[in-house]
Protein backbone atom coordinates (compact mmCIF):
# COMPACT_ATOMS: atom_id res chain seq x y z
CA UNK A 1 0.00 0.00 0.00
CA UNK A 2 0.99 3.55 -0.70
CA UNK A 3 2.56 4.96 2.46
CA UNK A 4 3.51 8.47 3.52
CA UNK A 5 6.27 9.57 5.86
CA UNK A 6 5.00 11.37 8.92
CA UNK A 7 6.96 13.33 11.51
CA UNK A 8 4.96 14.40 14.52
CA UNK A 9 6.19 15.67 17.85
CA UNK A 10 4.04 13.99 20.49
CA UNK A 11 4.16 15.41 24.01
CA UNK A 12 7.51 16.90 23.16
CA UNK A 13 8.99 13.70 21.79
CA UNK A 14 9.67 13.47 18.05
CA UNK A 15 8.07 10.50 16.36
CA UNK A 16 8.46 9.30 12.83
CA UNK A 17 6.74 6.64 10.78
CA UNK A 18 5.56 5.66 7.33
CA UNK A 19 1.83 5.23 7.43
CA UNK A 20 -1.16 4.68 5.20
CA UNK A 21 -2.82 8.04 4.57
CA UNK A 22 -6.13 6.71 5.85
CA UNK A 23 -4.70 6.13 9.33
CA UNK A 24 -6.34 8.65 11.61
CA UNK A 25 -4.30 10.70 14.06
CA UNK A 26 -6.16 8.92 16.87
CA UNK A 27 -5.03 5.53 15.62
CA UNK A 28 -1.50 6.80 15.05
CA UNK A 29 -1.29 7.95 18.65
CA UNK A 30 -2.81 4.78 20.04
CA UNK A 31 -1.11 2.20 17.89
CA UNK A 32 2.08 3.68 16.52
CA UNK A 33 2.91 5.69 19.62
CA UNK A 34 1.37 3.35 22.16
CA UNK A 35 -0.43 6.26 23.80
CA UNK A 36 -3.81 4.74 24.46
CA UNK A 37 -5.04 7.60 26.62
CA UNK A 38 -6.75 9.05 23.55
CA UNK A 39 -10.00 7.09 23.33
CA UNK A 40 -12.24 6.15 20.44
CA UNK A 41 -15.87 6.67 21.35
CA UNK A 42 -17.87 7.38 18.22
CA UNK A 43 -15.18 7.82 15.59
CA UNK A 44 -17.23 10.46 13.82
CA UNK A 45 -16.46 13.59 15.75
CA UNK A 46 -19.42 13.83 18.11
CA UNK A 47 -18.36 12.42 21.49
CA UNK A 48 -15.04 14.20 22.13
CA UNK A 49 -13.25 11.23 23.71
CA UNK A 50 -10.48 11.51 21.13
CA UNK A 51 -9.75 15.21 21.65
CA UNK A 52 -6.05 16.12 21.52
CA UNK A 53 -4.15 19.36 21.03
CA UNK A 54 -2.52 19.90 17.65
CA UNK A 55 -0.22 22.93 17.65
CA UNK A 56 -1.98 24.01 20.80
CA UNK A 57 -5.51 23.79 19.48
CA UNK A 58 -8.10 21.21 20.46
CA UNK A 59 -9.07 18.91 17.59
CA UNK A 60 -10.88 15.59 17.08
CA UNK A 61 -8.08 13.12 16.49
CA UNK A 62 -10.55 10.75 14.83
CA UNK A 63 -11.29 13.34 12.16
CA UNK A 64 -7.72 14.03 11.22
CA UNK A 65 -5.46 11.77 9.24
CA UNK A 66 -2.01 11.27 10.74
CA UNK A 67 -0.46 12.55 7.52
CA UNK A 68 -2.22 15.87 8.08
CA UNK A 69 -0.40 16.24 11.40
CA UNK A 70 2.98 16.00 9.68
CA UNK A 71 5.26 18.67 11.13
CA UNK A 72 2.92 19.48 14.00
CA UNK A 73 3.16 19.27 17.76
CA UNK A 74 0.55 17.07 19.36
CA UNK A 75 -0.33 17.00 23.03
CA UNK A 76 -2.32 14.07 24.35
CA UNK A 77 -3.68 13.53 27.85
CA UNK A 78 -0.40 11.79 28.66
CA UNK A 79 1.33 15.11 28.11
CA UNK A 80 -0.85 17.28 30.31
CA UNK A 81 0.79 16.56 33.66
CA UNK A 82 4.15 18.14 34.49
CA UNK A 83 7.49 16.53 33.72
CA UNK A 84 7.72 15.21 37.24
CA UNK A 85 4.21 13.81 37.10
CA UNK A 86 2.63 16.73 38.88
CA UNK A 87 -1.07 16.87 37.94
CA UNK A 88 -2.24 19.96 36.13
CA UNK A 89 -4.91 22.08 37.82
CA UNK A 90 -7.74 20.46 35.87
CA UNK A 91 -6.44 16.96 36.52
CA UNK A 92 -6.28 17.76 40.21
CA UNK A 93 -9.74 19.21 40.41
CA UNK A 94 -11.33 16.46 38.29
CA UNK A 95 -10.16 14.08 40.95
CA UNK A 96 -11.25 16.30 43.84
CA UNK A 97 -14.67 17.07 42.39
CA UNK A 98 -15.54 13.52 41.30
CA UNK A 99 -15.46 14.51 37.65
CA UNK A 100 -14.95 10.92 36.52
CA UNK A 101 -16.23 7.41 37.19
CA UNK A 102 -15.28 4.98 34.47
CA UNK A 103 -12.81 7.44 33.04
CA UNK A 104 -13.48 6.74 29.38
CA UNK A 105 -14.46 10.29 28.49
CA UNK A 106 -11.95 11.84 30.88
CA UNK A 107 -8.92 12.27 28.61
CA UNK A 108 -11.09 14.09 26.08
CA UNK A 109 -12.47 16.33 28.82
CA UNK A 110 -9.07 17.05 30.32
CA UNK A 111 -7.58 18.07 26.99
CA UNK A 112 -10.63 20.11 25.98
CA UNK A 113 -10.73 21.89 29.33
CA UNK A 114 -7.01 22.60 29.17
CA UNK A 115 -7.59 24.39 25.86
CA UNK A 116 -10.71 26.17 27.12
CA UNK A 117 -9.08 27.53 30.27
CA UNK A 118 -6.06 28.68 28.35
CA UNK A 119 -8.28 30.69 26.00
CA UNK A 120 -10.75 31.83 28.68
CA UNK A 121 -9.16 31.66 32.11
CA UNK A 122 -12.24 32.83 34.05
CA UNK A 123 -15.24 31.26 32.35
CA UNK A 124 -18.79 31.65 33.56
CA UNK A 125 -20.91 28.62 34.28
CA UNK A 126 -22.67 29.06 30.96
CA UNK A 127 -19.39 29.36 29.07
CA UNK A 128 -18.16 26.17 30.67
CA UNK A 129 -21.28 24.20 29.75
CA UNK A 130 -21.25 25.59 26.25
CA UNK A 131 -17.56 24.87 25.84
CA UNK A 132 -17.94 21.28 27.01
CA UNK A 133 -21.00 20.53 24.89
CA UNK A 134 -18.76 18.59 22.54
CA UNK A 135 -17.69 16.07 25.15
CA UNK A 136 -20.10 13.32 26.24
CA UNK A 137 -20.08 11.55 29.59
CA UNK A 138 -22.39 8.64 30.37
CA UNK A 139 -21.47 8.19 34.02
CA UNK A 140 -21.27 11.39 35.99
CA UNK A 141 -24.16 13.55 34.88
CA UNK A 142 -21.63 16.33 34.21
CA UNK A 143 -22.03 18.36 37.41
CA UNK A 144 -18.77 17.08 38.91
CA UNK A 145 -16.98 17.98 35.71
CA UNK A 146 -18.37 21.50 35.66
CA UNK A 147 -17.40 21.95 39.30
CA UNK A 148 -13.91 20.76 38.46
CA UNK A 149 -13.58 23.42 35.78
CA UNK A 150 -14.73 26.15 38.16
CA UNK A 151 -12.20 25.02 40.75
CA UNK A 152 -9.40 24.75 38.22
CA UNK A 153 -10.15 28.26 37.01
CA UNK A 154 -9.90 29.51 40.58
CA UNK A 155 -6.63 27.70 41.07
CA UNK A 156 -5.14 28.92 37.84
Amino acid at each position, binding site marked *: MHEWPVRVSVNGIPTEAAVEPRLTLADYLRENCGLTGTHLGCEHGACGACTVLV*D*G*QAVRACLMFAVQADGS*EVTTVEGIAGEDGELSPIQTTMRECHGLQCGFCTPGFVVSITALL*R*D*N*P*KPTDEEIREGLSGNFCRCTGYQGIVNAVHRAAEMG
Partner: protein
Amino acid sequence: MELNNEFRVAVPAAKAWEVLTDVERVAPCIPGAQLLSVDGDEFTGAVKVKVGPITVSYKGEAAFQEKDRAAQRVVIKANGKETRGSGNAAAVVTAALKDEGDSTTVVITTDLTISGKAAQFGRGVLADVSSSLIGQFAKNLEADLLGGSTTTAAPTAETATAAAQPDNAIDSLTLVKAVAPSLAKRYGPVVAAVGAGAAVGFLLGRRKRKSPAAVVTEDLQAALLRLLGS
Protein backbone atom coordinates in the same frame (compact mmCIF):
# COMPACT_ATOMS: atom_id res chain seq x y z
CA MET B 1 7.85 34.60 26.43
CA GLU B 2 10.79 36.77 25.45
CA LEU B 3 10.96 38.32 22.01
CA ASN B 4 14.04 40.08 20.70
CA ASN B 5 14.17 42.60 17.93
CA GLU B 6 16.41 45.37 16.83
CA PHE B 7 16.32 48.16 14.31
CA ARG B 8 18.38 51.04 13.13
CA VAL B 9 17.41 54.64 12.46
CA ALA B 10 19.57 57.09 10.53
CA VAL B 11 19.61 59.73 13.24
CA PRO B 12 21.94 60.32 16.19
CA ALA B 13 21.02 58.71 19.50
CA ALA B 14 20.13 61.99 21.14
CA LYS B 15 17.40 62.66 18.59
CA ALA B 16 16.11 59.09 18.73
CA TRP B 17 16.00 59.35 22.52
CA GLU B 18 13.85 62.48 22.28
CA VAL B 19 11.18 60.72 20.29
CA LEU B 20 11.29 57.40 22.08
CA THR B 21 10.61 59.07 25.40
CA ASP B 22 7.76 61.16 24.06
CA VAL B 23 4.47 59.25 23.96
CA GLU B 24 2.77 61.57 21.56
CA ARG B 25 5.55 61.07 19.04
CA VAL B 26 6.00 57.35 19.56
CA ALA B 27 2.34 56.34 19.48
CA PRO B 28 1.66 57.48 15.90
CA CYS B 29 4.53 55.28 14.75
CA ILE B 30 3.06 52.09 16.14
CA PRO B 31 1.12 50.32 13.37
CA GLY B 32 -2.54 49.87 14.10
CA ALA B 33 -2.35 51.87 17.31
CA GLN B 34 -4.51 54.69 18.56
CA LEU B 35 -3.57 56.90 21.48
CA LEU B 36 -6.58 57.67 23.63
CA SER B 37 -5.21 59.68 26.52
CA VAL B 38 -1.94 60.85 28.02
CA ASP B 39 -1.29 61.64 31.65
CA GLY B 40 2.37 62.35 32.19
CA ASP B 41 4.19 59.07 31.76
CA GLU B 42 0.98 57.06 31.67
CA PHE B 43 -1.22 56.64 28.65
CA THR B 44 -4.15 54.63 27.36
CA GLY B 45 -4.75 53.39 23.88
CA ALA B 46 -6.16 50.83 21.53
CA VAL B 47 -4.36 48.67 19.03
CA LYS B 48 -5.39 46.32 16.24
CA VAL B 49 -2.96 43.57 15.40
CA LYS B 50 -3.04 40.94 12.69
CA VAL B 51 -1.95 37.61 14.13
CA GLY B 52 -1.87 35.01 11.41
CA PRO B 53 -5.05 35.58 9.40
CA ILE B 54 -7.04 37.07 12.26
CA THR B 55 -7.26 40.63 13.51
CA VAL B 56 -7.37 41.08 17.26
CA SER B 57 -8.13 44.41 18.93
CA TYR B 58 -6.88 45.34 22.36
CA LYS B 59 -7.57 48.26 24.60
CA GLY B 60 -5.44 49.10 27.58
CA GLU B 61 -2.90 51.23 29.30
CA ALA B 62 0.85 51.64 29.39
CA ALA B 63 3.39 53.60 31.33
CA PHE B 64 7.06 54.47 31.18
CA GLN B 65 8.67 52.51 33.98
CA GLU B 66 12.10 53.84 33.31
CA LYS B 67 13.72 56.60 31.32
CA ASP B 68 17.41 56.26 32.05
CA ARG B 69 19.10 58.90 29.90
CA ALA B 70 22.58 58.01 31.13
CA ALA B 71 22.18 54.34 30.29
CA GLN B 72 20.09 55.18 27.19
CA ARG B 73 17.39 52.76 28.27
CA VAL B 74 13.63 53.04 28.19
CA VAL B 75 11.26 50.56 29.79
CA ILE B 76 7.55 50.58 29.06
CA LYS B 77 5.03 48.38 30.77
CA ALA B 78 1.81 47.78 28.84
CA ASN B 79 -1.36 45.85 29.49
CA GLY B 80 -4.29 45.36 27.15
CA LYS B 81 -7.56 43.46 27.21
CA GLU B 82 -9.19 42.07 24.09
CA THR B 83 -11.98 44.36 22.94
CA ARG B 84 -14.02 41.33 21.91
CA GLY B 85 -13.03 38.43 24.06
CA SER B 86 -11.55 37.62 27.40
CA GLY B 87 -7.91 37.50 26.49
CA ASN B 88 -5.14 39.67 27.74
CA ALA B 89 -1.78 40.88 26.49
CA ALA B 90 0.85 42.15 28.90
CA ALA B 91 4.26 43.32 27.84
CA VAL B 92 7.32 44.83 29.38
CA VAL B 93 9.30 46.43 26.59
CA THR B 94 12.90 47.44 27.12
CA ALA B 95 14.56 49.58 24.47
CA ALA B 96 18.29 50.13 24.64
CA LEU B 97 19.80 52.75 22.36
CA LYS B 98 23.25 52.26 20.91
CA ASP B 99 24.86 55.43 19.67
CA GLU B 100 26.56 54.94 16.33
CA GLY B 101 27.34 58.53 15.51
CA ASP B 102 24.93 59.45 12.70
CA SER B 103 22.68 56.52 13.38
CA THR B 104 21.26 54.64 16.30
CA THR B 105 20.62 50.97 16.81
CA VAL B 106 17.73 50.25 19.12
CA VAL B 107 17.64 46.84 20.73
CA ILE B 108 14.19 45.85 21.90
CA THR B 109 13.50 43.10 24.38
CA THR B 110 9.86 42.25 24.97
CA ASP B 111 8.64 40.11 27.81
CA LEU B 112 5.21 39.08 26.57
CA THR B 113 2.44 37.29 28.41
CA ILE B 114 -0.56 36.55 26.32
CA SER B 115 -3.88 34.78 26.76
CA GLY B 116 -6.97 34.46 24.62
CA LYS B 117 -7.17 34.63 20.86
CA ALA B 118 -3.50 35.29 20.15
CA ALA B 119 -2.31 32.70 22.66
CA GLN B 120 -3.31 29.79 20.48
CA PHE B 121 -0.67 30.74 17.97
CA GLY B 122 2.73 29.37 18.71
CA ARG B 123 5.78 31.38 19.59
CA GLY B 124 6.82 31.33 15.95
CA VAL B 125 3.78 33.26 14.76
CA LEU B 126 3.95 35.71 17.66
CA ALA B 127 7.63 36.32 17.00
CA ASP B 128 6.81 37.00 13.34
CA VAL B 129 4.05 39.41 14.32
CA SER B 130 6.35 41.27 16.70
CA SER B 131 9.13 41.48 14.10
CA SER B 132 6.75 42.81 11.53
CA LEU B 133 5.25 45.34 13.98
CA ILE B 134 8.67 46.54 15.06
CA GLY B 135 9.93 46.66 11.50
CA GLN B 136 6.95 48.83 10.61
CA PHE B 137 7.45 50.94 13.72
CA ALA B 138 11.09 51.48 12.83
CA LYS B 139 10.19 52.64 9.32
CA ASN B 140 7.56 55.00 10.69
CA LEU B 141 9.91 56.26 13.37
CA GLU B 142 12.65 56.92 10.86
CA ALA B 143 10.27 58.73 8.55
CA ASP B 144 9.13 60.79 11.49
CA LEU B 145 12.66 61.60 12.58
CA LEU B 146 13.95 62.41 9.12
CA GLY B 147 10.86 64.35 8.16
CA GLY B 148 11.60 66.86 10.89
CA SER B 149 9.31 68.38 13.50
CA THR B 150 6.84 69.97 11.07
CA THR B 151 5.32 66.74 9.87
CA THR B 152 5.40 65.03 13.20
CA ALA B 153 3.26 67.60 14.94
CA ALA B 154 -0.07 65.89 15.40
CA PRO B 155 -2.40 68.56 16.66
CA THR B 156 -5.58 66.53 16.73
CA ALA B 157 -6.28 63.08 18.04
CA GLU B 158 -7.64 62.07 14.67
CA THR B 159 -4.53 62.88 12.76
CA ALA B 160 -2.47 61.10 15.39
CA THR B 161 -4.59 58.04 14.82
CA ALA B 162 -4.24 58.28 11.10
CA ALA B 163 -0.53 58.92 11.13
CA ALA B 164 -0.19 55.76 13.12
CA GLN B 165 -0.54 53.79 9.96
CA PRO B 166 1.33 55.33 7.07
CA ASP B 167 2.36 51.97 5.68
CA ASN B 168 -1.00 50.39 6.27
CA ALA B 169 -2.46 53.58 4.90
CA ILE B 170 -3.59 51.99 1.67
CA ASP B 171 -5.65 49.49 3.55
CA SER B 172 -6.85 52.23 5.87
CA LEU B 173 -7.93 54.29 2.95
CA THR B 174 -9.83 51.49 1.28
CA LEU B 175 -11.38 50.75 4.64
CA VAL B 176 -12.32 54.40 5.00
CA LYS B 177 -13.92 54.56 1.59
CA ALA B 178 -15.78 51.34 1.95
CA VAL B 179 -16.82 51.56 5.49
CA ALA B 180 -16.75 55.15 6.66
CA PRO B 181 -19.98 56.40 5.09
CA SER B 182 -21.99 53.55 6.55
CA LEU B 183 -20.08 53.05 9.77
CA ALA B 184 -20.24 56.78 10.32
CA LYS B 185 -23.98 56.48 10.59
CA ARG B 186 -23.78 53.29 12.55
CA TYR B 187 -21.21 54.29 15.09
CA GLY B 188 -21.44 58.00 14.97
CA PRO B 189 -19.04 60.84 14.50
CA VAL B 190 -16.03 59.17 16.13
CA VAL B 191 -15.48 56.79 13.28
CA ALA B 192 -16.11 59.43 10.68
CA ALA B 193 -13.43 61.50 12.34
CA VAL B 194 -11.06 58.57 12.41
CA GLY B 195 -11.91 57.86 8.81
CA ALA B 196 -11.30 61.41 7.76
CA GLY B 197 -8.21 61.46 9.91
CA ALA B 198 -6.99 58.27 8.30
CA ALA B 199 -7.41 59.82 4.90
CA VAL B 200 -5.60 62.97 5.94
CA GLY B 201 -2.94 60.88 7.58
CA PHE B 202 -2.57 58.87 4.43
CA LEU B 203 -1.73 62.00 2.54
CA LEU B 204 0.58 63.27 5.26
CA GLY B 205 2.11 59.85 5.55
CA ARG B 206 2.75 59.57 1.86
CA ARG B 207 4.41 62.93 1.87
CA LYS B 208 6.55 62.06 4.85
CA ARG B 209 7.93 58.93 3.25
CA LYS B 210 9.69 60.64 0.42
CA SER B 211 12.62 62.91 1.14
CA PRO B 212 11.47 66.47 1.63
CA ALA B 213 12.92 67.61 -1.66
CA ALA B 214 10.98 65.13 -3.73
CA VAL B 215 7.30 65.34 -2.92
CA VAL B 216 5.84 63.21 -5.64
CA THR B 217 2.84 65.10 -6.85
CA GLU B 218 1.53 62.19 -8.88
CA ASP B 219 1.31 60.10 -5.74
CA LEU B 220 -0.49 62.90 -4.00
CA GLN B 221 -2.90 63.32 -6.89
CA ALA B 222 -3.59 59.62 -7.11
CA ALA B 223 -4.24 59.55 -3.41
CA LEU B 224 -6.60 62.50 -3.63
CA LEU B 225 -8.49 60.90 -6.49
CA ARG B 226 -8.94 57.72 -4.56
CA LEU B 227 -10.11 59.69 -1.56
CA LEU B 228 -12.58 61.86 -3.41
CA GLY B 229 -13.77 59.81 -6.31
CA SER B 230 -14.68 56.41 -7.69
